[in-house]
């Protein structure tokens, strides 16, 4: 086996957000991204989990969230699964950044940081997929 894969299963509880950030941050650093890229990817994944807690589970702390991080040939791929409410299409479309309105910032961050982002509704719930290509420091 080459590369790295790690999976989490966690309750939709905000207490676990720092745990996710720590793990994703360690993984991004281990594969060679610089500090700014590591912070950006950590933020994007944190925002994806936060969106699930806020919107799919509407603040409930007993929902299931599964996160898988995989090292691919050219970077990292993330899959996040939940059994909550389907995403609101108006929220998936990030609002125009820069306006002094507080909504939609998380989705904007995710789309800005990650190279590819997609959402799927499955029989068992929601699937969020995101990938970031590796740009190693030379």
């Amino acid at each position, binding site marked *: 086996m080459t590369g790295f894969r790690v999976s989490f299963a966690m309750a939709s509880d905000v207490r676990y*957000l*720092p745990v996710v950030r720590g793990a994703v941050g360690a993984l991004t650093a281990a594969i060679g991204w610089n500090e700014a890229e590591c912070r950006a990817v950590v*933020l994007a994944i944190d*925002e994806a989990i936060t969106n699930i807690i806020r919107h799919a589970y509407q603040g409930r702390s007993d929902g299931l969230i599964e996160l898988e991080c995989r090292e691919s040939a050219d970077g990292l791929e993330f899959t996040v699964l939940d059994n909550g409410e389907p995403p609101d299409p108006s929220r998936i479309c990030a609002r125009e*950044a*820069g306006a*002094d309105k*507080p909504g939609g*910032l998380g989705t904007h*961050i995710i789309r800005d940081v990650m190279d590819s982002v997609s959402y799927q509704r499955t029989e068992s719930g929601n699937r969020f997929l995101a990938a970031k290509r590796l740009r190693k420091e030379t």
Partner: protein
Amino acid sequence: MKISIRDVGPAKIVDVDGDVDLGTSGTLRSTLFAALPETSILALNLKAIRYIDSSGIATLIEVLNDSRRLNKQFVLIGLSTAVEEVFRLTHVIRIFRIVQTEQEAVGDL
């Protein structure tokens, strides 16, 4: 996350230490909204914030909008590199008054 408030001249300075995320931004929000009506300058010291997410940025935007409505000043002190990156990612950095020292934050009065 730890929050404390100090009176410095005409200003209230809110010091925050730690991570601002979905689990803590509500406390930051309630603290800032409680302090805002009681001062002419509300300054948020961000120097010890290691992490802020969109819920934290949204909180700051809400406070900024309310400060404008109340004709108060809302000032941010000392963005760390990590926090400044989030401000730039969300393209909101231009809407805030950001200074490096407490003296700059309160010095205009």
